[in-house]
């Protein structure tokens, strides 16, 4: 029973976070672009995400005539489920985790590879060429960058000696620098780049490149189904930011303990990474598809392999 309550709390908190991540994004990018961002709905525009949510919920749900209905319905749900399932294994603070499993990191990989099915099926089921191309792009992008993502974390696994996320944090606290981002700087770099690609964010937002593919795989989606994709994307960002925090930035540990808020540092680090996401989006142009692929295969994967080799050597020598 307690588990159900915890789950509901977690889902509620995360959905609220998603809503306000969009607000945060619009404010951040707004100020970077010499404008204000939302200001009208509520004080400082704080009710804007709520209004958006209500609007999306009540919008007409258009389904293209020749779409494959079953998969068209299923695709956004697959995406959302895959993103949300990750939340279960994330430790937000010491002991504050829904399901402490000893393959937490692998579970996250498994779920993120599942998310690509949602995307590619959305593209296929819409029976629209823009969607289809977006879906194909996303599929190959996610497969390629998942390799780099996984390899970049191997160094962390080697240093921590565990796949359990909580244990990784614990091992990190005992390590010399307190965070793995310093000894694993190469891995961290690869991870950050692959993380952007994995969540389809700028400058790797090709699957939904609006200038070429209209909106990529969710071109044909509207209303609540569109918002499911939207939520999945933001939860995906949150999960990736959490993984970065847990594996490289020392998780919930900070320079000093904040009383009564055990997850303070965790949240602060996540929001820092989210800010980084938005900052990049406001600054960088978009890669071209083949450039993205060659970056992934020819730069990131070799770098990640190098990182593994170096980590292995260092670990055996010292």
């Amino acid at each position, binding site marked *: 029973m307690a588990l159900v309550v915890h789950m509901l709390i977690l889902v509620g908190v995360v959905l609220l976070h998603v809503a306000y991540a969009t607000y945060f994004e619009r404010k951040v*990018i707004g100020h970077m672009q*010499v404008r204000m961002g939302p200001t009208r709905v509520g004080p400082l525009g704080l009710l804007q995400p709520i209004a958006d949510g209500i609007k999306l919920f009540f919008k007409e749900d258009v389904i293209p005539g020749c779409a494959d209905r079953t998969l068209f319905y299923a695709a956004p749900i697959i995406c959302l489920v895959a993103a949300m399932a990750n939340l279960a294994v994330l430790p937000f603070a010491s002991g504050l985790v829904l399901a402490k499993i000893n393959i937490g990191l692998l579970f996250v990989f498994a779920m993120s590879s599942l998310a690509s099915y949602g995307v590619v099926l959305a593209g296929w089921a819409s*029976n629209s060429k*823009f969607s*289809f191309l977006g879906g194909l792009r996303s599929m190959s992008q996610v497969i390629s960058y998942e390799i780099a993502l996984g390899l970049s974390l191997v160094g962390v696994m080697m240093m921590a000696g565990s796949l359990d996320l909580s244990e990784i944090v614990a091992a990190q606290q005992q390590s010399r620098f307190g965070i793995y981002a310093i000894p694993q700087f190469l891995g961290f770099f690869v991870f950050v780049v692959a993380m952007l690609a994995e969540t389809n964010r700028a400058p790797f*937002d090709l699957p939904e*490149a609006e200038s070429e593919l209209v909106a990529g795989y969710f071109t044909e989606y509207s209303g609540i189904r569109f918002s499911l994709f939207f939520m999945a994307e933001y939860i995906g960002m949150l999960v990736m930011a959490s993984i970065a925090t847990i594996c490289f930035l020392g998780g919930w540990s900070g320079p000093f303990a904040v009383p009564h808020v055990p997850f303070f540092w965790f949240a602060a680090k996540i929001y820092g990474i989210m800010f980084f996401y938005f900052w990049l989006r406001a600054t960088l*142009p*978009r*890669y071209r598809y083949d450039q993205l692929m060659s970056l992934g295969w020819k730069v990131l994967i070799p770098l990640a392999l190098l990182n593994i080799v170096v980590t292995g050597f260092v670990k055996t020598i010292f």
Partner: protein
Amino acid sequence: MMGTEFRNLAVPVRDGESELFTVQMGPQHPATHGVLKLNLWMDGETVVRCDPDAGYLHRGFEKIAENKTYAQFLPLTDRLDYISAMANNVGYCVAVEALLRIEVPLRAQYIRTMVAEMARITGHLLWLATHALDIGAMTVFLYCFRERGLLLDLFEELSGARLTTTYTRIGGVRQDVTARAMEKLARFVEEFPSRIAEYETLIDTNRIWLKRTKGIGCVSAEQAVQLGFTGPSLRASGVDYDVRKHRPYCAYDKVQFEVPIGVNGDVYDRYRCRMEELRQSALIIRQCLEQLPPGAIVADNAPDLVMPLARPRQPMAGSSLATGYIELVPNNDVYPEGDVYVSIEGSKGELGFYFVSDGGGRPYRMHIRSPSYIHIGGLATVCEGVLVADVIAIIGSLDVVLGECDR
């Protein structure tokens, strides 16, 4: 299009002669700058063939012009390249004045030069904004609109409208510039180069930007001339052709400026050319402000217009201002027979008007040589064998406006 007998198929169907994936990009598409439609035949993401389909915005301007007086057609020129309507006004009036042999006073010439350059800046700014957005850099968009807004404010002060200005008149301009507006303009020109530097810091040294633009959509000098490209799209290929220098109009022979020339003719060079042109335009405006002579703003022998001019004048023979209508009697003195082709350097390229007059008060034939039309015509050649993402970059770099293309 593919068959629909098997409903659930969204796959490229490989049967018979076409092994290619066809995509109809547009007419409603965020990156086709209006209502352009591209039929693309793709092999994977490589465009094997591109067939642009224009005409969605065709309004029959040339037919309309044959049934309107010269002055009546003027507001319609705003709707050509609606991004920089001022330049169209200038081009149309310069052409009509050449046809009707009207001498425009010097002050009006300078004002026209000034507004044409302002229009070029607004046009280029919008181009930069949308081009950067196409490539994915969204912040430049809003920076450009900040400066564009300032210029549109000035247009509003000059003409009363921000977009469809109809500011020039046959024989001059609608009304004289105000000191306040000129002060604002001077301030703008002073500040503008630093703003350009700001845009450049955002994208010029960005590796992704360079990767997306350098070596993409190369057009050789010979090819560009062959395709009839004009304006920055031609000059980026290294061809020194600028109507302002070749056949000076307005006050362009009285101001100093340089024409930036590119080398490779790729998307990046077209971008660089336009950025340099922004600087040169600011320079021209500054010179115009310094040199702006006093005097009349409308020629004495300008034909009467439906709208009153700034200065009350005697109605000319053959018209009656009192009733507000123009009596169109064939009058070889006012509307001499003959034809003329006059072009100006619009922000997109050479905007030309070919007029045939038969002595009546209306054009016998008017042809608009619009740069966008010719650029889109050349798109098929440039887009062959590039990736679909590059098509977007190329459309953006050629800078087309469909209002002007389809007329």
